[in-house]
């Protein structure tokens, strides 16, 4: 196997405020192979979007970012110096969460689609970039793309705007495509259409993908492997099928229990499963296992930090239970 497209070891992010600091990411490891699609799953507040933003150097100025080792496409990257910012819009592209606010209301779709290509294709004429944008827009399923290029975001429906946002990512022909909650802000029916577009994309492009979502279902549909995050740490990772069918970490199990199984018979007597308790305050993280406070299988050893266990076939998890 050749070297991965992206490797990050021990990624840490913390925010420094006046007199206090909050640790958002604690020792996250991530590897994405060429052409591979990786899902990043967790509750809100798990730090999954922070990983994506840190990758592009898009975190606020008071964020402190560090990693033991990071490399993109064979080149070492220094996260502390935000070197990855130079990959924006050329090697890495991002599909944003909320298509309602991700586009500038004052400029036509065409203008925005042209300007985001400028860094990737510095020498192309505006006319050529416009033509590319129009073609890609048609490709992601926007009808009458030629006329639509001159329209403003408010003239598009939510689903159509999300297609525009996806078109942006495709236009720069990135090596890595990050999708941050690509369907969360959409209606169920439109969500299905957008997933379909992403699916087609996945089959056609050779780019690697990082899908950030709270939904195991979406990740199962789009990804080869999955990284489960909880409160800024990776609790489990491995091939989607393995993690989905044989979750090792209690948190993964709880997360899967919260998903609605679309094929299960509707049973009104059965409440929707929830995980009791809340994510720990990032400014006061517990010493031992981060999930211990909410874990149904907690025992004495959990007051110590669990190691990353290897379970073969690229599978890792951080829990004392299975180690025993």
């Amino acid at each position: 196997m050749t070297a991965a497209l992206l490797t990050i070891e021990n990624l840490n992010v913390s925010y420094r405020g006046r007199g206090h600091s909050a640790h958002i990411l604690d020792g996250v490891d991530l590897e994405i192979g060429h052409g591979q699609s990786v899902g990043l799953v967790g509750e809100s507040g798990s730090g999954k979007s922070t990983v994506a933003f840190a990758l592009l150097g898009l975190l606020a100025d008071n964020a402190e970012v560090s990693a033991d080792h990071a490399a993109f496409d064979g080149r070492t990257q220094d996260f502390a110096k935000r070197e990855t910012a130079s990959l924006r819009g050329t090697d890495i592209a991002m599909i944003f969460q909320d298509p309602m606010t991700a586009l500038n209301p004052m400029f036509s779709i065409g203008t925005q689609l042209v300007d985001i290509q400028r860094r990737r294709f510095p020498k192309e004429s505006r006319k050529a970039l416009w033509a590319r944008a129009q073609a890609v827009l048609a490709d992601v399923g926007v009808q009458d793309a030629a006329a639509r290029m001159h329209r403003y975001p408010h003239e598009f429906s939510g689903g159509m705007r999300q297609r525009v946002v996806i078109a942006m990512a495709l236009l720069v022909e990135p090596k890595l495509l990050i999708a941050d909650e690509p369907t969360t802000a959409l209606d169920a029916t439109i969500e299905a259409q957008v997933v379909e577009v992403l699916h087609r994309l996945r089959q056609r492009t050779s780019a690697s993908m990082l899908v950030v979502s709270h939904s195991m279902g979406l990740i199962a549909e789009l990804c080869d492997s999955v990284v489960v995050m909880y409160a800024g740490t990776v609790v489990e990772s491995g091939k989607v099928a393995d993690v989905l069918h044989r979750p090792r970490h209690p948190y993964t199990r709880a997360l899967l229990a919260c998903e609605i199984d679309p094929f299960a018979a509707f049973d009104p007597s059965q409440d929707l499963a929830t995980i009791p308790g809340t994510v720990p305050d990032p400014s006061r993280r517990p010493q031992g296992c981060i999930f211990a406070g909410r874990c149904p299988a907690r025992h004495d050893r959990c007051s110590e930090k669990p190691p990353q266990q290897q379970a073969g076939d690229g599978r890792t998890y951080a829990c004392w239970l299975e180690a025993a």
Partner: protein
Amino acid sequence: MRSASFQIHLASKLATALLAVAGSVVLLLALTRFIPGDPATVILGSRATPEAVAALNARIGLDKPLIEQAFAFFGRLFSGDLGEDVFNGRPVLSLVLGALPNTAALAISAMLTAIVLGVPLALVSARWPGGKIDRLVAFLSVGFISTPSFVVSVFLLMVFSVTLRWFPVLGAGESGDLGDQLWHLVLPTAALAAGWVGYIARLLRSSLLEVLSESHIRTLRAYGVSEAKILMKYALKPAVLPTVAVLGMGFGELLGGAVFAEVIFNRPGLGSLIYDAIRTRNYPVVQGGVFVIVLLYVLTNLIADLSQSLIDPRERARLVSGRGAVT
């Protein structure tokens, strides 16, 4: 843009503006009734004959109800009659029209100066918020905003005309000599523009910072669009909207401020016309002059309001379709 609904929008804005103008005329006319003593006698002087007083009363309409007087005012206005100077009988309209270009030149040059200086200051401040330049601009703009323009005028006159003798002290310059007129315009313009530079810089800076924190800007950053382009194109256009509305109001305030600049620098203009008329109790001239300023004030507010709608594509769509934007 040419659809019926746009015309309706325009008509309703115009109607509101006209009501404000009409209301202010009624107020102006009502005020003349409060002139202590018999207005006509005050206007004409104590040696006026009773016939002259009666004639003036009939002419101004002081013997009629206020509303009738207001209609008469507008009726005469449409035939270009704004009353007469009580001393020499010259038509007020021609006095006002003669003075207007000087005042308009002053107000426009002050507004342009304020924009030309204020916008770059706002851009620099918003690009590096909290930086040295930002803090300096914040400090200076509060200072300039709160300093009365007539104090600035007197100080400029003292330093640059009396002490340094770089600029002429008085007047508006030789008519026909554009260079001389511009030279005379420099100090009054600076005095009037000073506060507005600070105002525009602060207002635009804060709306720029607000826009820069929105997620569509993050999208552009994620694609490596240059900070300069983000600031000058994608953030500036939405941020300009609230500033445009304030500029409409500002123009009217500048017309008011022009009174001081014109009196201090001894420039002929609408402000000094009104000032002289007040001192000589030349009421028709005061009335006509104030009316024209109110008219311009309402008009510039209207223009600002409409241009705001034309800049924003969402508003534009609403104007064209006559309903809320489809979301």
